[in-house]
């Protein structure tokens, strides 16, 4: 049944699985099902978690996935393990130094 209501149920079902599945527990990920596609948005900490989330949504809904999920890393951006990360770290630190609140 391809009605907005049914798609709402699918969204809720996918988000419930992401929140409660053992080893996932991602509450900051949003799944919006519309037009027979599932758009996955939000952020997770690692690439491994992104794969786990996308796999779980695909398994739960069996529809086309539009993957807009961001990998944040612990420096606040993707490519947590890349060399490029260090230059972004320095840029972020410089920005932070200029932004100390108080």
């Amino acid at each position, binding site marked *: 049944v391809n009605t907005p209501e049914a798609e709402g149920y699918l969204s809720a079902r996918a988000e419930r699985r992401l929140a409660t599945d053992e080893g996932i527990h991602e509450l900051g990920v949003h799944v919006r099902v519309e037009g027979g596609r599932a758009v996955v948005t939000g952020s997770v900490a690692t690439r491994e978690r992104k794969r786990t989330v996308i796999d779980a949504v695909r398994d739960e809904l069996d529809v086309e996935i539009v993957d807009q999920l961001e990998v944040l890393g*612990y*420096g606040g951006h993707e490519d947590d393990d890349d060399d490029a990360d260090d230059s972004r770290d320095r840029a972020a630190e410089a920005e932070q130094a200029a932004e100390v*609140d*108080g």
Partner: protein
Amino acid sequence: MTMTVAAVGDVHIGRDSAGRLGRHLQKLNDEADVLLLAGDLTQCGTAAEAEILADELAPVEIPVVAVLGNHDLHSGQEAKIGDILEARGIALIENTFTVIDVDGQRLGIAGATGFGGGFSGACASDFGEPEMKAFVARARAAAEALEHGLSELGNDGVDARIALLHYSPVTDTLQGERLEIYPFLGSYLLAEAVDRAGADLVVHGHAHGGIERGVTPGGVRVHNVALPVIRRPYRLFRVP
């Protein structure tokens, strides 16, 4: 003289996090006097994840003070998590408070996970089903503990007071989140507690889709330091 506080929330340490957080904290000892962790320290709330977090924080030599978040409570291992962190010198201040000496100045921190319940005009009431009453009671107990802690710190004459929370006390820092989930993101009772007792700064996490800055109705500055919001390893603040 001001003190510099670093804060971050929602690091969500999991089995895949080993070696990934600590590398971003190497300069912290030179930049701040204390590190505050605003809950959701772990992804699934397990003792094993707490061990990984403690390892990641090993290079941090400044005092570390934390509250738990809802993720940390999921597996019912919060006592073990607390023991692991305490054994590594990380102070867990759940519904209590602590004072840290910073070069002769005294920084007071009152901490609580807090809870949901909503905000003025759209909040849960202590009425009806026992489950609803229990929901409201949890938020109220956290707010009362926060107010008590901040009041005690005020009576003690500390140089600055910080409220460390996981849930948000205001809607300001929730902007960007879906309005429908605001009641699960925080409670006005926390802001009321802060305004009654007084504080120099409130930091919280939990609202990944929110924004950084807000203020309580009484004028106390509020910062959402959830990692997905600040998008950096920590945020620095000067107090008082």
